[in-house]
């Protein structure tokens, strides 16, 4: 392919879903439901096929990285802000994952949203074309996410970053008639904005010291700024790189839902399940992970930043896993599992095992999308009841959903041979070898996390697909496997969830797949060290019987079997015996309450105070109306001397004359 062919291809990849979104959204009545899904699916399919072609070009044919500028957004002060693309192996892998999962979700949505009118009040006009609008939004999301991963500069990265946030906002609150949904979307947007606040300041720091927002320029000059110190707080100098990386990482914490900015993600489950799979599991929430990996030339220059990243990731991986144990809503279990897995990826970044983190991002995208869509399939069959306490024994009724969900769960817990096994174990061994401060704690967290993951995953699996059928007779009579548009994506996602780990681990995690796209300083390079020790797919499989994660996962599954299949009275006993801990977990460590009381209530209180006291009492009351009153009061005094009686004036004149007379006299 020539350069100009490649440039046309990249533009087509971005525009195809955008055009689909615009047509389905703005002309929803004209195109109808069938038109809307046909157009958007075609658009995303074009994107996927072209991304696959680029993948082949860059990975198998050894094509060169594509640097392309599309147009100049603006020029100011000699600094050029451009819209442009940087397509290297990291980008192209993300593109394939995003467009593939998006395509699966588009197809699945045909089934999931088929009866969406039931979710709206009859007279609602917004409910009339909600089907088309949904397709428009998920296509718009695909466009935004592609802009994010394909960006060649920070400004466009920020554009994509906020654009995916916008679509996430629109989709979480998609069922806008539900108060809980419109609360959740506002919360998601605001918490993400807190992250973006840090992110934007990070961009400001980059621009100030590099005089450019272009990735290549910044990365090439990063070494030069290694020793620059800045005094943000007067008297305590910080390394510039630490400052930049921490600010950027605050953005990643918002988008990738890392502790303590994770609180929006569980609530985002208010959105329809297809977007939980696409946005809140497979793609958007991994944008933070992608961003840090993209910025590896900067993060590698700051041990402090890496250490922070690792500790935050470890906290998220472990403590969010605990919360998954007590959830009864099927989607919430998967949501907490997503948080925990994002923590794993973040830990990998902190250990400088970017490749392992990205590799886990990829496998996770497949199996977590699969788990979500499987949960969605269950939800369709259960007529939108999401409570696992009303399920059980579903495997009889929905064999495809059952098998694919089992595959997804096995991949998630890292059963030997499945995708998650390779990616998660690479992270665990990398953390074990890391020397960054905090890696001891992180290693403990990710190991214990394996047990927790297996426990909550199989708790869910057993509660849903095995055991007693706890649903009502009416629900049972309606149970049946979902239509092919739903099961086909499940099957297509199940395949990579099994094989993709084995196929790519040697190249992506331990090999040189990413080439120059990811930079690792020699003294941090745990993955290369592991590869030199002979780590590869086969050796990982062979070492299974002597690896701790394997036994921990097995123990988790066994415990789940014991607690939820055999001795089902034990969980209740534990819950009542340790009711305090159980309550803390049920209330998610009370962080939502704290955030809403302290930040929500606090800022309303502050606003009211400033308004009533500052604006109304002092400025208006004292200064403005006060001066008006003063003028009025002075005039009321002056009024007394303007009585209109002639003899008053005559008397005043005489007094005045007398006064003048006396003055001149003496």
């Amino acid at each position, binding site marked *: 392919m020539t350069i100009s062919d490649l440039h046309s291809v990249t533009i087509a990849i971005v525009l195809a879903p955008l055009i689909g979104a615009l047509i389905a959204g703005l002309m929803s009545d004209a195109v109808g439901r069938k038109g809307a899904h046909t157009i958007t699916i075609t658009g995303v399919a074009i994107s996927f096929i072209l991304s696959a072609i680029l993948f082949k070009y860059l990975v198998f044919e050894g094509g060169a990285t594509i640097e392309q500028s599309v147009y100049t957004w*603006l020029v100011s002060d000699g600094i050029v802000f451009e819209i442009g693309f940087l397509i290297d192996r990291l980008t192209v892998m993300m593109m394939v994952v995003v467009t593939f999962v998006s395509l699966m979700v588009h197809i699945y949505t045909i089934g999931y949203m088929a009866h969406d009118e039931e979710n709206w009040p009859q007279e609602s*006009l917004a409910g009339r074309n909600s089907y088309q609008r949904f397709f428009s939004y998920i296509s718009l999301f695909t466009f935004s996410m592609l802009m994010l991963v394909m960006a060649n500069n920070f400004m466009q990265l920020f*554009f994509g970053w906020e654009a995916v946030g*916008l679509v996430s906002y629109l989709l979480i*609150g998609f069922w806008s008639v539900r108060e809980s949904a419109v609360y959740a979307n506002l919360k998601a947007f605001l918490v993400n904005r807190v992250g973006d606040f840090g992110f934007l300041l990070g961009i400001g720091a980059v621009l100030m010291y590099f005089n450019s927002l272009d990735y290549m320029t910044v990365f090439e000059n990063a070494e030069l700024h290694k020793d620059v110190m800045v005094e943000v707080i007067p008297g305590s100098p910080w390394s510039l790189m630490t400052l930049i990386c921490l600010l950027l990482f605050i953005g990643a914490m918002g988008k990738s839902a890392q502790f303590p900015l994770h609180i929006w993600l569980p609530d985002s489950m208010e959105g329809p399940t297809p977007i939980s799979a696409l946005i809140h599991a497979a793609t958007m929430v991994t944008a933070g992970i992608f961003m840090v990996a993209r910025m590896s030339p900067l993060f590698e220059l700051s041990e402090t930043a890496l250490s922070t990243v690792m500790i935050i990731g470890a906290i998220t991986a472990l403590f969010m896993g605990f919360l998954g144990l007590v959830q009864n809503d099927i989607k919430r279990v998967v949501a907490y599992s997503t948080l925990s897995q994002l923590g794993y990826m973040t830990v990998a970044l902190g250990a400088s095992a970017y490749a392992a983190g990205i590799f886990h991002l990829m496998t996770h995208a497949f199996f977590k999308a699969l788990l979500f869509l499987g949960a969605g399939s269950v939800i369709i069959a259960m007529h939108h009841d999401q409570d696992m306490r009303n399920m059980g024994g579903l495997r009889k009724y929905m064999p495809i959903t059952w098998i694919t969900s089992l595959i997804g769960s096995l991949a998630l817990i890292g059963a030997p041979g499945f995708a998650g096994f390779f990616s998660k174990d690479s992270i665990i061994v990398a953390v074990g070898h890391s020397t960054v401060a905090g890696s001891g704690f992180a290693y403990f967290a990710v190991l214990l996390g394996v047990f927790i993951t297996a426990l909550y995953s199989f708790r869910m699996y057993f509660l849903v697909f095995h055991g007693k059928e706890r649903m009502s007779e009416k629900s049972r009579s309606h149970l049946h496997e979902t239509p092919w548009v739903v099961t086909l994506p499940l099957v297509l996602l199940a395949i990579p969830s099994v094989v993709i780990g084995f196929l790519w681990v040697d190249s992506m995690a331990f090999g040189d797949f990413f080439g120059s796209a990811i930079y690792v300083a020699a003294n941090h390079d745990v993955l290369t060290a592991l590869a030199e020790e002979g780590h590869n797919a086969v050796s990982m499989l062979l070492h299974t019987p002597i690896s701790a994660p394997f036994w921990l996962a097995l123990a988790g599954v066994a415990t789940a079997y014991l607690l939820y299949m055999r001795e089902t009275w034990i969980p209740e006993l534990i819950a009542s015996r340790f009711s305090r801990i159980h309550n803390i977990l049920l209330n998610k460590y009370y962080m939502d309450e704290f955030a809403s009381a302290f930040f929500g209530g606090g800022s309303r209180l502050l606003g009211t105070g400033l308004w009533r006291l500052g604006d109304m009492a002092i400025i208006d009351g004292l200064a403005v109306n006060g001066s008006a009153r003063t003028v009025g009061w002075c005039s009321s005094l002056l009024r007394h001397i303007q009585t209109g009686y002639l003899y008053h004036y005559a008397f005043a004149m005489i007094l005045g004359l007398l006064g003048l007379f006396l003055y001149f006299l003496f």
Partner: protein
Amino acid sequence: MFAESPLLSLTIWIPIFGGLLVLFVGSKENGGFEARVIALLVSLITFIISLPLFVYFDRSQWQMQFEEFVPWIDAVRVNYHLGVDGISMPLIILTTFMTVIVVIAGWKVISEKPAQYMASFLIMEGLMIGVFASLDAMLFYVFWEAMLIPMFLIIGIWGGDNRIYATMKFFLYTFIGSLFMLVALIYLYLQSGTFSILELHQFKIALTPQILIFLAFLFAFAVKVPMWPVHTWLPDAHVQAPTGGSVILAAIMLKLGAYGFLRFSLPITPDASHALDDLMITLSLIAVAYIGFVALVQTDMKKLIAYSSISHMGFVTLGFFIAFTIFESTGSFQGAAMGMEGAMVQMISHGFVSGAMFLCVGVMYDRIHSREIASYGGVVHVMPKFAGLLVLFAMANAGLPGTAGFVGEFMVILSAFKANFWIAFIAALTLVLGAAYTLWMVKRVVYGPVSENKVATMEDLSLREGLFMAILAFAVIGLGLYPAPLLEVMHATVDHLVQHIAISKL
């Protein structure tokens, strides 16, 4: 051909005489419809006539263009001197553009004295363009004061229940501010013997008089912007003003104050600007943060948007005065131009976005006559098209990238970072606060179940409403996706201004 024709005079006087014509036609029996048609034609013609200013503007030079010069009062050397540069030209286009929108928006809504209503807006349009185009301080002052009259009438006649308090507050605030400016201008004339703004730019003044002049200008301009703490007239004026009045007030009138800083304060008193820049930055940051919190707790939508305007205008004044802090912390003015250009983009984008927000409130008010957030809820179910546009404008108000609202704030924050981390930090709070107050309002108004029977009766946008909302939506997205053409016309002027203020007059 355009260089010779008096384009600026035409854009000033066509709407003024057009306004008089509308008054004349409307005074006839049943003249309402004719008056509206003429008003629309006049505003369209003015808009079309203003376009060559943009198209044929020489982007490579900073000097005044499309200049016109006629001696007016020889005794005190006052001249009818017009001209535009990269600062004033975009604002003139914004004025002619928004007037068309306001005329369409007021088409059906105003049933009482429609001709007088339309005429007030047309006359005000001409006067505001006169302010932007004046290169003579006295001419500037005449337009500046004259402009108050139509706005005074618009709020006082077509306003809400408490309009008298609001008009008096508006008039006294701005009038007292302007008197200080008049004193400063007379002082400058007595010292220099000229009212020519461009000559005053070069006139050397000692520091103490500079500071006094700066403060006098500050009174006049800060009230108009408005800056904290002289902002309290704005929420009252907005609440009482009819929709069109609010739109022009937010979209154009506030910009006049900011424009004054660029045309008078910075170039005439650069050393005072330098000496008092901490004050200006502090007031700007208070506007961004303090007002952001105040906006959060408003229950009246117009008040909320009014406070949001003050907060957004804080970025404008921040962008103007950050230059000196950048110089102090980095030793050069590199980066200052980005702040100023960002501030100017913010002026234009705020014109579109705040105008659109006020129009949205107007659309809802026309239906059920309430501005209270609590009266609404679930509007999306009865007005889905409107809701979509409102969410778009709200996102622009919250500074979403890809919309106009992002560009200016982004540039100012980047520029402020060069000056001081903490200035950028406080300014960037708007990312959270702006989203919080705007989207919280959207949540309560647009989303949720249909709350009241009244809301259930609301009908979606009419063709006329859809038209002006769609035009603004295009403007908001267009400027967000491709701001480069707007920036191009500013570069030469702003670069020159930065060089000018870098040289001390002492």
